[in-house]
């Protein structure tokens, strides 16, 4: 009891330090508890949603016109899959929508009828209109839970499908639980009426958009592999299925949705570890200082008969009480934050989180922190044993041994405060090492967060630099148009900075690889502004190719190796000349020159112009100028029913609308027409259509990643603030314990005429060598962590912005100086007379 009283007395005496340690343990506990209580929630939400929906774990979709029963038999016979359910769906890639507020949305979409949905899942409806209301709906649509959870959509809302300039409004009848196809990357499955389905069959029949046969089955525990299946199917039929085969599974959707959440969670754990490390080092540092400071009291207590173990315990209790209070506050914080995390996780994955806050995990985190604090406090407090009473009376000095006099003042030059600070620094290397560890770890995290915040400050612009493709305005040309000539004309427009010829992306099989590749074609890659060379060089000749770092990891292919691309029944060999980084299409990109591309795909023709607009020019302004130059695009002509003017002009507008519909929906390449009105022949043709469509993938990217970018920016700024507070607390503790320990020395120096400011400056300067070195080390560490983060999270190569890092370094050093200087303000309270009379 006496020991506990001693601890409480010490706590009362060192209130500020106790608050600082409690703050550090609170932050540590909070982050660890949030991590431990939430890490499994998203996974559980996935399991629950599949169980509730009665969904199987895998779906293979093959274009209906290419599908053969043999493909299904391969699954059954070669992979031992039983219980395959066959159904039908329409796939619409990057389909445009307008929500109830008229805002544009783009989703990868699958449409099924209720009959087909019931074949593959239980069609569990939720949040729906009444049956009477649904009965009255002309175009009902059932949406997966994502729309309810993440898009704030409600039953009765209008959702309008926009295709080729036409609008198809639906009324949301309600939502249903689904396992697969409830994901931004893999698309959303929507249930529509038989009539609407039949209409969509006619509309979505171009390119990838088509009717697909779906095979739903459980692949877990079987030998199923999608690439192997495609190859077996292709071998059987003799035709490539790479552009007609679509595959989705729990694992893919989970990996796609959870990657960001997991990164966030592991960063919480990482930051918690950093704060824990700092807390432990600070506690150990404080105990050492306290023991040294109270050495004579220790001697007195020992002389009075206290055992060294009991005295040690008085220090341990002090920090267990402090750490315990911090952990308790952290636990309360975690209980407050966890429900908010549920909302965040639900919004991110678009599935209901049914798991309640795991109180056990939160409490366990608190216990872990208190145990760690106890353990390290015990280790350090055991030092008391080294000092029997007589040694303690002599302030721990056993022999009068002193080391070499580093930096003798007689040889010093320059400012005396700086010299004394450096001298003091070398006399206290142990503290310097402890400080260095804390500053390095926290500064690494701060620099990481600062770079992250800067990266996301302009929304998705930063992410766009990592896509591995140029996400710019794309002008798609009508077939038969001279692409090079139009490109040159567009490049001459004052609104345009640069125009490059481009191709439609194709998926090509890579021999010996499980990962097909999406093509990225440029004559000269150095012209593309968002494709960065990581290693080697860009492909220049028709037998050269550049691949991504991800493919290097997938296939083990490196610079100098060969890669064989399979297409149109032929195999074409390329030499890998360089590596880039790409977040697009899971980093499967194949980067070829035009001539190289045509070796694998002789039928490929460039029909897209990638347009880089001048700064300040909007896409709308550019489209307007483009219309003035080339007339309206086929897409715009589809909605030209309200044209005005003379009869001839109105007839021509109406004819253009029909021409546009035929060319865009049915692939008609050339039409001539002639009509007679009151003996007057009005004729025309489709050759005046130059532009098929103008689009910007930025909209889709903004929608898919804008939220992630915003959350990341806020998270990075928040983490920077919290970590800065941690640094401030650490340095504040070091400075105040320095003042306490050197009380006598500082008093003497004050007596000599050193002002409080001189001495504060000395203490602040003393931490500078270690701060500067630590921040430099932290910059290199942050570079490695940042690069590893991007590679692990997105397979992309993230690089620290060096000018920003240097600025952040300078600010960090200045911040550390200011915090230490201010914290050393305690010196002002030391009066010379107090020192002399004590």
């Amino acid at each position, binding site marked *: 009891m006496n020991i506990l009283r001693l601890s409480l007395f010490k706590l009362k005496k060192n209130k500020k330090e106790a608050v600082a340690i409690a703050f550090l343990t609170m932050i540590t506990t909070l982050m660890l508890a949030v991590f431990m209580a939430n890490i499994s929630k998203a996974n559980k939400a996935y399991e629950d949603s599949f169980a509730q929906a009665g969904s199987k774990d895998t779906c293979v979709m093959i274009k209906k016109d290419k599908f053969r029963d043999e493909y299904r038999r391969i699954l059954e016979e070669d992979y031992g899959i039983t219980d395959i359910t066959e159904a039908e769906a329409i796939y619409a890639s990057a389909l445009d929508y307008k929500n109830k507020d008229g805002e544009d949305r783009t989703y990868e979409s699958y449409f099924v009828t209720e009959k087909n949905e019931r074949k593959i899942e239980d069609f569990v409806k939720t949040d729906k209109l009444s049956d009477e209301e649904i009965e009255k709906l002309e175009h009902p649509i059932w949406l997966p839970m994502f729309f309810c959870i993440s898009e704030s959509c409600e039953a009765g809302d209008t959702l309008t499908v926009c295709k080729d300039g036409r609008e198809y409004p639906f009324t949301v009848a309600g939502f249903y639980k689904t396992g697969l196809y409830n994901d931004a990357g893999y698309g959303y499955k929507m249930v529509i009426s038989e009539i609407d389905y039949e209409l969509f069959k006619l509309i979505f029949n171009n390119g990838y958009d088509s009717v697909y046969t779906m095979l739903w089955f459980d692949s877990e525990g079987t030998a199923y592999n999608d690439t192997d299946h495609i190859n077996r199917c292709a071998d059987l039929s003799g035709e490539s299925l790479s552009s007609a085969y679509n595959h989705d599974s729990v694992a893919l959707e989970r990996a796609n949705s959870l990657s960001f959440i997991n990164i966030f969670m592991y960063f919480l754990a990482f930051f918690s570890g950093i704060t824990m490390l700092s807390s432990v080092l600070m506690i150990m540092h404080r105990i050492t200082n306290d023991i040294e400071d109270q050495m004579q009291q220790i001697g007195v207590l020992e002389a009075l008969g206290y055992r060294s173990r009991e005295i040690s315990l008085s220090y341990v209790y002090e920090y267990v009480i402090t750490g315990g209070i911090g952990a308790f506050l952290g636990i309360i914080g975690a209980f407050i934050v966890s429900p908010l995390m549920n909302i965040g996780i639900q919004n991110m994955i678009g599935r209901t989180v049914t798991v309640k806050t795991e109180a056990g995990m939160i409490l366990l985190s608190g216990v872990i922190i208190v145990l760690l604090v106890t353990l390290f406090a015990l280790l350090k407090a055991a030092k008391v044993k080294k000092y029997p009473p007589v040694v303690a009376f002599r302030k721990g*000095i056993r022999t*009068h041994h*002193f080391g070499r*006099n580093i930096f*003798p*003042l*007689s040889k*010093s*030059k320059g400012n*005396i405060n700086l*010299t*004394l600070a450096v*001298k*003091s620094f070398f*006399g206290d290397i142990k503290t310097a090492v402890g400080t260095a560890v804390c500053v390095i770890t926290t500064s690494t995290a701060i620099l990481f967060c600062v770079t992250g915040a800067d990266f996301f400050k302009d929304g998705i612009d930063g992410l766009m630099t990592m896509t591995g493709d140029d996400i710019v305005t794309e002008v798609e040309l009508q077939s038969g148009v001279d692409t090079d000539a139009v490109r040159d004309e567009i490049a001459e427009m004052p609104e345009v900075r640069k125009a490059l010829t481009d191709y439609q992306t194709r998926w090509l099989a890579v021999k010996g690889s499980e990962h097909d590749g999406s093509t990225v074609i440029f004559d000269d890659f150095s012209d593309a502004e968002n494709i960065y060379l990581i290693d080697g060089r860009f492909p220049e000749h028709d037998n050269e190719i550049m691949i991504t770092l991800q493919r290097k990891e997938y296939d083990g292919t490196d610079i100098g190796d060969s890669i064989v691309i399979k297409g149109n029944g032929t195999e074409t060999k390329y030499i890998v000349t360089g590596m880039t980084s790409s977040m697009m299409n899971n980093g499967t990109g194949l980067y070829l020159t035009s001539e190289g591309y045509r070796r694998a795909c002789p039928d490929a023709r460039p029909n897209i112009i990638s347009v880089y607009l001048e700064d300040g020019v909007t896409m709308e302004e550019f489209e307007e100028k483009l219309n003035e130059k080339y007339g309206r695009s086929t897409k715009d002509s589809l909605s030209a029913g309200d044209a005005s003017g003379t009869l001839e002009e109105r007839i021509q507008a109406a004819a253009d609308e029909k021409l546009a519909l035929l060319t865009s929906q049915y692939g008609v390449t050339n039409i001539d027409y002639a009509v007679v009105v009151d003996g007057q022949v009005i004729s025309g043709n489709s050759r005046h259509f130059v532009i098929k469509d103008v689009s910007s993938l930025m909209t889709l990217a903004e929608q898919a990643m804008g939220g992630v970018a915003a959350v990341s920016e806020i998270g990075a700024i928040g983490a920077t603030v919290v970590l800065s507070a941690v640094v401030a607390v650490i340095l504040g503790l070091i400075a105040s314990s320095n003042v306490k320990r050197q009380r*006598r*020395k500082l*008093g*003497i*120096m*004050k*007596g*000599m*005429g*050193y*002002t*409080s*400011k*001189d001495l504060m400056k000395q203490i602040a300067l003393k931490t500078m060598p270690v701060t500067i070195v630590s921040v430099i080390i932290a910059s290199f560490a942050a570079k490695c962590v940042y690069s590893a983060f991007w590679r692990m999270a997105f397979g992309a190569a993230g690089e620290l912005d060096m000018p920003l890092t240097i600025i952040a370094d300078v600010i960090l050093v200045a911040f550390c100086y200011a915090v230490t200087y201010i914290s050393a303000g305690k010196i*002002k309270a030391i*009066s*010379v*007379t107090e*020192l*002399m*009379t004590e």
Partner: protein
Amino acid sequence: MASSILRTEKLCKSFSNGGNQQHVIKNLDLEITEGDFTVIMGSSGSGKSTLLYALSGMDKPTLGKIYFGDTQIQDYSNDQLAMFRRGSCGFVFQSVYLLDDQTVLDNVLTGALIVQKNTPELVNKVKDLLRKVGLDEEDWKKYPNQLSGGEAQRVGIVRAIINEPKILFADEPTGALNSASSRDVLDIFTEIHKNGQSIVMVTHDMKTALRGTRVLYLRDGGVVGDYRMKPYTDDDKQTRRAGLAAFLEEMGW
């Protein structure tokens, strides 16, 4: 006639003690002349050290004025007082207060470099002074814990005079020393005084007080006796001792 270096008017210093005010110095008017070796004596609790700290700018008075030359210093801020101490004063303490982690040479230089630039001349001056007080080259590299009490106090004196202060304050500089060391230290004070240094010293030891030219006796926060002597020489020890003893006896010491 020598000019006044320190002067007080109605100087008061009080301490709060559990809500009660303890008046240690009461309305003290005092003048210290340049070149004097002033010794302040008195019984325990008479306010000797408190007066010394107030005069030297180590502590602020509660009321009254302190003139250093023509400048009032009683309202100086802590930083201004620090500047005043570094530029005009030197201190020798009973407990010496050397910096434990610095060598003898560095202890003196720490005091010197706050005022002067680090030049070979300054370092040589420190070395000369250390030699003069009997510390040779071997001692310069020693740390305070390796010195005897007398040696440490001699370092303290060198540190106090290295900046050539206008006035040197000493608070019972021989209080913790044996008689041989005390004599050595007092000889140094006498030597410094002979060279024109103004000194104000607090002591309760008559042998120490004999070295002064003026003895002020404090009682209940006020000066009750002011005894003047000629500068110290080894020849008139007996006469000085008798005179001072009579004064102190009169004061009730």
